[in-house]
């Protein structure tokens, strides 16, 4: 470890930060995916429900009866918003992954470059 230059040490720190960022992004993505999945199942259930059945929806702190079609439209809109967010997160994830791999390769080649003369 003593042979690692401050520059490489700095790069390793950046790699660790990127890993943490990646974990945050992935957990956010998985939360959105779960919410979207739940909403899709709710729409599926609503479509299977009789048109005459009473449908209620949480509005702020109260639960109100709403027409089935209106509830389906609202949940569908929610799914679309979530899907847009998921796509945007996927873009961030890809960019971060590319940056991570590039920096990782740099660090690897710098460490290997240092080791080579010692071995010889």
């Amino acid at each position, binding site marked *: 470890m003593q042979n690692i230059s401050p520059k490489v040490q700095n790069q390793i720190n950046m790699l660790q930060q990127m890993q943490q960022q990646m974990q945050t992004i992935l957990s956010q993505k998985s939360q959105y995916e779960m*919410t979207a999945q*739940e*909403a899709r*199942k*709710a729409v599926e*259930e*609503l479509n299977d*429900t009789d048109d005459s*059945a*009473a*449908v*209620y*929806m*949480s509005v702020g702190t109260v*639960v109100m009866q709403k027409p089935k079609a209106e*509830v389906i439209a609202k*949940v569908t809109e*929610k799914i679309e918003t979530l899907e847009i967010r998921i796509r945007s997160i996927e873009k961030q994830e890809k960019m971060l992954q590319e940056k991570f791999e590039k920096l990782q390769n740099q660090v690897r080649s710098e460490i290997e470059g240092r080791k080579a003369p010692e071995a010889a």
Partner: protein
Amino acid sequence: MAPVDPREVQSLQNYLNQYTQQAEVYSRQLGIMEEGIREANASIETLNALADAGEAPVFMPIGGGLNIRATIVQPDEVFVSIGSDIIVQKTNNGAISYLQDRIKEMEASAKNLTEVLQKIDAQVKDIQKRLELLYRQAQTEQQGAGSLQ
């Protein structure tokens, strides 16, 4: 026999830790699934009992071990949370059928999780066996080196 490579031991130990962590996560998920199935079955039992009881009074728990006498005014009206903050009114039978479908889904997921856990368990056992062998070999190597001195 080739001498014990510490890198192999380290790598096996890392795999073992990863698999153990994965198994813990899946076990927790399986526990949640099993609890969900138990809860749904209890609700079905309640709905069946309410359908039989009609408007007969029941004890409604209000917490702290306290109950109050209550009468179900409309035993055939059940309000089911279907996720995404939506509640749908169903008949007693409709609610039972909804729960039975959920139970089927949870049972299928639990079965998948059990299979994954079994696979992880087999892998963990393989790694443990290999590690044990390497540790024993390392001990023999150390003893051999000691007797040479």
